[in-house]
């Protein structure tokens, strides 16, 4: 309703309306990275009160008839603010919400898009069903129960097994599901009209990559991604736009160093703790949040590679 009023009477009134509500829904700032392609940049940080959980990139693509929303942010409130950003930029309605993967910083804003079908990887529903309660508890610890209030139940209306096309009106988006890489439910969105690829967290820039799937699988997926004929990409974390495919290089180097380092420890008969102490140390200065994620990446990769 608020959206409709705002659209009819213009931005000034919308702003007044927003100011009157304590749960402020100031539109998220967005950048138009290509014609009709808008991106909001999240902070490169762990969710915390100073960033209100706004730690992942999200965006929307506007066609002649409809809008597609790509990720919705780390809290229901961020979803509301994204919805307001869409309303501020176009009169067209979201026809689909696309979740690039299960992580809470990308999906808890789904709550603001009730009634809009949600598309995601065919594994997304099960993966989220097993995790959402833990994610909700963690968000409550990080930001308080207010921030976590109103998280929507798990819903994936359009599971994507391989490729799905979405027509927004003279604009086709291609949704592609990948085998286990960053998670077991990674999905990319390619806007053919402008050659813009939303990678989700299959691409981290500046923020150290986080392995919650399979490092070897991720390296294989990078080889596939590299062939996508995009001219720019929107990473899940990092700047709003990066050059394609060059932006993949740093991440490939990190994952290669991670895998080779863990293999060396395994060959030498070392344990997980030896691996955590040393592996990928040479990458430390090249990434943000290295200490928050590298030890976990090493632990996960060790447990993966010891079965080789």
């Amino acid at each position, binding site marked *: 309703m608020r959206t409709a009023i705002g659209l009819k009477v213009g931005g000034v009134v919308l702003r007044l309306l927003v100011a009157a509500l304590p749960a402020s829904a100031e539109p998220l700032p967005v950048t138009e990275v290509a014609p009709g392609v808008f991106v909001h940049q999240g902070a490169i940080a762990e969710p915390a009160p100073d960033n209100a959980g706004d730690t992942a990139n999200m965006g929307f693509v506007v066609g002649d008839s409809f809008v597609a929303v790509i990720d919705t942010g780390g809290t229901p409130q961020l979803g509301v603010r994204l919805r307001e950003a869409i309303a501020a930029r176009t009169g067209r309605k979201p026809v689909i919400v696309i979740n690039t993967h299960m992580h809470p910083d990308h999906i808890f804003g789904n709550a603001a898009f009730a009634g809009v079908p949600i598309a995601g990887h065919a594994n997304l529903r099960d993966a989220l069903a*097993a995790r959402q309660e833990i994610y909700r*508890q963690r968000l409550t610890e990080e930001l308080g129960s207010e921030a976590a209030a109103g998280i929507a139940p798990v819903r994936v209306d359009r599971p994507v097994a391989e490729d799905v096309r979405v027509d927004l009106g003279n604009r086709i988006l291609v949704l592609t599901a990948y085998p*286990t890489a960053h998670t077991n439910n990674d999905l990319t969105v390619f806007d053919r009209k402008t050659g813009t690829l939303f990678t989700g967290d299959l691409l981290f820039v500046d923020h150290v990559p986080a392995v919650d799937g399979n490092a070897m699988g991720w390296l294989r997926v990078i080889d596939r991604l590299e062939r996508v004929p995009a001219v720019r990409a929107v990473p899940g974390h990092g700047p709003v736009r990066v050059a394609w495919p060059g932006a993949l290089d740093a991440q490939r180097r990190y994952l290669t160093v991670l895998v080779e380092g863990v293999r060396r420890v395994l060959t030498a008969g070392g344990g997980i703790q030896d691996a955590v102490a040393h592996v990928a140390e040479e990458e430390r200065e090249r990434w943000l949040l290295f200490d928050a994620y590298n030890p976990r990446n090493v632990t996960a990769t060790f447990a993966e590679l010891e079965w080789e």
Partner: protein
Amino acid sequence: MMRYPPMGLLAGLLIVLSMPGLAATDAAEDAARWDILHDMYFKDRPIEEAGTLIRIDAPARAHDAALVPVRIEVEPSLRLKSLSLLVDKNPVPLAATFRFGPASAGSGIETRVRVNEYTNLHAVGETQDGRLLMTAVYVKAAGGCSAPAVKDPQEAMARLGRIKVKLPEALSPGSPATAQVMVSHPNSSGLQFDQVSRTYIPAHYIQSILIRAGGRTVLEADTDISISEDPNLRFSFLPTGGGSLEVVAQDTKGATFTHSVPLTAAAAKGDPAL
């Protein structure tokens, strides 16, 4: 505008709550918890501090609460009858009890546990003459028991029951060797919640692992839900001339998984060396 308490006040409260006074209460709580566990698992038997005879090593802050590596080192001269590992504040604190057999070559064990909240881990060794010796380490980690640990459920189910044994490249009969046994199993704790079905995923875990070398027992382990998915044990044993290292694992649904690796240097290459 006043729906939210001012952040400054909240921050002040948090700081007060995390003051050292609380830490003292924590220590008292930890001690009280251990008293309960002592009664529960060891009745009224006295337990001495192990001093340097038993050491336990785990990361002070775990990187993955569902996969916390723990190493228990035991003074070589001390031949234990059994060794118990407890995660004090877990829903089922007793993670595992290892009983050592004649083919064991020392009572040290390395494994991986789930940690549900900041807690002490205790190792309690039982000597041949029935004394109990304990040591503890504090680990900061949370959520390990309810965490959805399996990253790739399809792959995990395809691999369920697979056992892998890692042996050193060279084995000489009678001189102690280190081996690692890995059992692929989700080890579902029963505390993992499925948001769509609104039910807990039923507990399904490895409850015993028997390891023999050349027909003689190395160790028998009773294991519970505090052990991480894909139970993983590293231990010492005495190789025989020839024969094999056998592993028999049983889970709570009655399935038995077995694996046997010949104890010869050449055969050891079949499973990659340590």
